[in-house]
């Protein structure tokens, strides 16, 4: 009793501080989460969430029974995992390179410039990309031509399309992604570098032994959260750039769900797919969380 009393006395302010945050997610996340029930229903608006007929796993079976489903899953995971890896490495590299710049104004200018593409929508960028990547008039192919290579139909060729998605997505988002690593860099103790310099460690060694370990918590965090996106290959981007020629390599879960939705609004089906994706992310994220805890005794969050 006394122990509990003391515990409560010590910890109650911490609990209290969470109340507003918990209220927010209770209202805007947990209550609406009841909607996952739709995944197992044929949702009828008048009958509502709790009165619509139960259809079991029918909505999931519709997904599994779709003739091209294997291909679609493969495309999704293939594109998404490349995006996850590149989307992690590029911003980290750029953050470190920016950090090496001596002059503050230079750093700020570059930082601001690379962050620009994040603010342009894919609707807009798709038009620009079609021009830039055009085999006949596009600048990329003109450069390839100048070094003696044959023009490549990047957006119309199944061998290239997935990589174009990865590269253009990384190009659009890396600048924005860099911000968080730059913030992480500010937390590294400058005295560590001074000490290393006295020990005669070069810049490369310092990066390896001080900078990277210093960023590690944030890197691990970002990696873990991004792994959860393995079934999200980027609807907006692919929807605006794909075409029947590259369906084979470009059709992903979300574009498929969209095309089914065009035929007829099927709330249950879209919810079922969403739930499936959630479960996969949950499994991946929780596994990495517990692995990190078990083997490195580190809590990612």
């Amino acid at each position, binding site marked *: 009793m006394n122990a509990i009393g003391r515990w409560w006395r010590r910890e109650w302010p911490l609990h209290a501080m969470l109340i507003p945050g918990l209220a927010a997610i209770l209202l805007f996340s947990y209550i609406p989460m009841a909607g996952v029930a739709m995944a197992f229903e044929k949702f009828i608006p008048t009958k509502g969430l709790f009165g619509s007929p139960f259809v079991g796993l029918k909505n999931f079976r519709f997904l599994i029974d779709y003739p091209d489903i294997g291909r679609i899953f493969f495309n999704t995971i293939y594109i998404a995992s490349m995006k996850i890896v590149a989307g992690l490495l590029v911003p980290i590299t750029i953050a470190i390179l920016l950090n090496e710049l001596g002059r503050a104004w230079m750093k700020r200018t570059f930082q601001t410039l690379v962050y620009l593409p994040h603010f342009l929508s894919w609707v807009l960028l798709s038009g620009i990309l079609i021009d830039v990547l055009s085999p006949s008039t596009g600048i990329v192919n003109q450069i390839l031509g100048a070094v003696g290579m044959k023009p490549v139909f990047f*957006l119309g060729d199944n061998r290239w399309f997935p990589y174009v998605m990865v590269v253009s997505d990384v190009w659009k988002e890396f600048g924005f992604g860099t911000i968080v690593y730059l913030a992480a860099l500010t937390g590294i103790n400058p005295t560590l570098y001074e000490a290393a310099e006295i020990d005669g460690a070069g810049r490369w060694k310092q990066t390896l032994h001080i900078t990277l370990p210093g960023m590690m918590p944030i890197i691990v965090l970002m990696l873990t959260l991004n792994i959860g996106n393995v079934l999200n290959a980027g609807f907006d981007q692919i929807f605006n750039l794909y075409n029947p020629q590259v369906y084979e390599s470009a059709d992903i879960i979300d574009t498929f769900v969209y095309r089914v939705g065009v035929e007829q609004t099927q709330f249950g089906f879209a919810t079922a797919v969403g739930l499936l994706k959630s479960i996969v992310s949950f499994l991946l994220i929780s596994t990495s969380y517990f692995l990190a805890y078990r083997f490195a005794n580190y809590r990612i969050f």
Partner: protein
Amino acid sequence: MSRKVKGVLAAALIAGLVAATACSKTDNGVSPSAASKGSEPSASSSASPGTDTSQVLEISTVRASDPYLKFDPGESFDKNAVYDAYEKDVGVKITNKWIADISQFPEKLKMAIASNDLPDFFPVDASQLQQLIEADMIMDLTDVYDKNANEYTKKFMTMDGGLQMKTATFDGKLMAIPQTGNPYGSQFLWVRKDWLQKLNLPEPKTMQDVLTIAEAFKTKDPGGTGKSYGLVMNKNLYDGATGVTGFMNGYHAYADIWIDDGTGKLAYGDIQPQMKQALQALQDLFKKGLIDPEFAVKDTNKASELLYGDKAGLVYGAEWSPAQLVNGAVKDGKVVQDWAVYPLPSADGEPAKSQIGIGVGTYYVVSKHAKHPEAVIRLLNQFIEADNNQTEENKVYEFGKDRVEKSSNYWLLNPLTAYNQTSTNGDVLPGAIANRDPSGLKTKDQKTRYGRAMKYVDGDVSMWWEYLISGPNGAVSLYPDIKKNNLFMQNKFYGAPTPTMVEKNAILLKKRDEVFIKIIMNQAPVDEFDKFVSDWKKLGGDQITQEVNDWYAKVK
């Protein structure tokens, strides 16, 4: 200590705020269904035929706001001359539950339906209509319509022999008021006339002419850009502009519609042998370099750049195509491209028929909980009356309180509209515009178009497009001949999507687009088409054909 208090206060403030707004509004959030339930039975019995306007009926709807609607000072969607006129003339007070921009209206409506938060009446598309019927959310209007629609309305709505009304009738019950309209909109061939003259080419009468012109436009490069093509098309083969339905129709192939197979049964256009020929022809064009090899990644806007930039001068499209073409044709206040329009050339001796739909895309439905469904029919009566028999008094429905045209598009405020099921635009407009004589113009559409075309005649080149649509040599001027010879192929299927369609169309359409594009781009031999047909049948097509024919047997 004081800081601590401040922090807690801030948190409490936020929480309280949420709670306060929540409390104040929950009551009226859920009430409408409960309140209206009691009066439901009286709905159909209360109104007598004709219109008793002594009692003002209140009715709610939702509206799409259009950027071309300009309000008179002091007026708005909620308070305007058109709504006032309906209240005064037929005793219906219209209220708006919400208003969304026209581009976002469908999404907002979807949410309203899904959350069962419906106004008394609202416009939906065919698939939503189906969904609302299944969910039992809308009212059977058979009796209400029968009792309240006046004779003129009833005649007006069935001038096409009742086809469009039938599309809103399910199991003998009228479930919606179709927004009637004119289905007879043909595809046309659009050609750069200045180039034809420059290169001394004949006007396109046959498909052979089209090929000759395409080849000449490519090889002789009249635009002088060095990168010219013959025919412009985009990745969506069936788009209304820069699509190839018109081209396919030239081969008597009909894309994505159901046609009579000659034995009284319905067959799907995409899998007929004529389609193979059309694809073969497109592949030939592609092989000769007459089609942009990058067309498959471009949408209409992107593909049209070839037209705007003098790189191509041959394209298929609907009568409104000039609204696209104007982007390149009018430059710095001058007309720099001269376009001409031709009826669809045919690949053989038999004239080409342009494929058309039913002509109804929008349906007005009435919520089960509406108290006064008869008010909807009053609106319909009044709109049809005002739109077709204009008097000085009812001009307010078109122009607002001043009753004069000032291009403020006040007619958009009418919450329920229905239009003629045939169009006389082709018979009336070209002559009226040529002779500057508006006396023969009847409909509002004709007057608007006449006004715009006259602006062009008087030197406003930005209205060039309307002249090419409605003027003496415009697209609509070709309609009288097309109609006389009945060169239309109408989709015979107008039922709700069948169960297998709902389930399988996503895969069937994907396969079709994939195969068709590959054939056109010469990445697959034309014989791939035969494999597609058998795949299509296996993947659910046969079942769909069966369902469509079952439906056909019922309605025939």
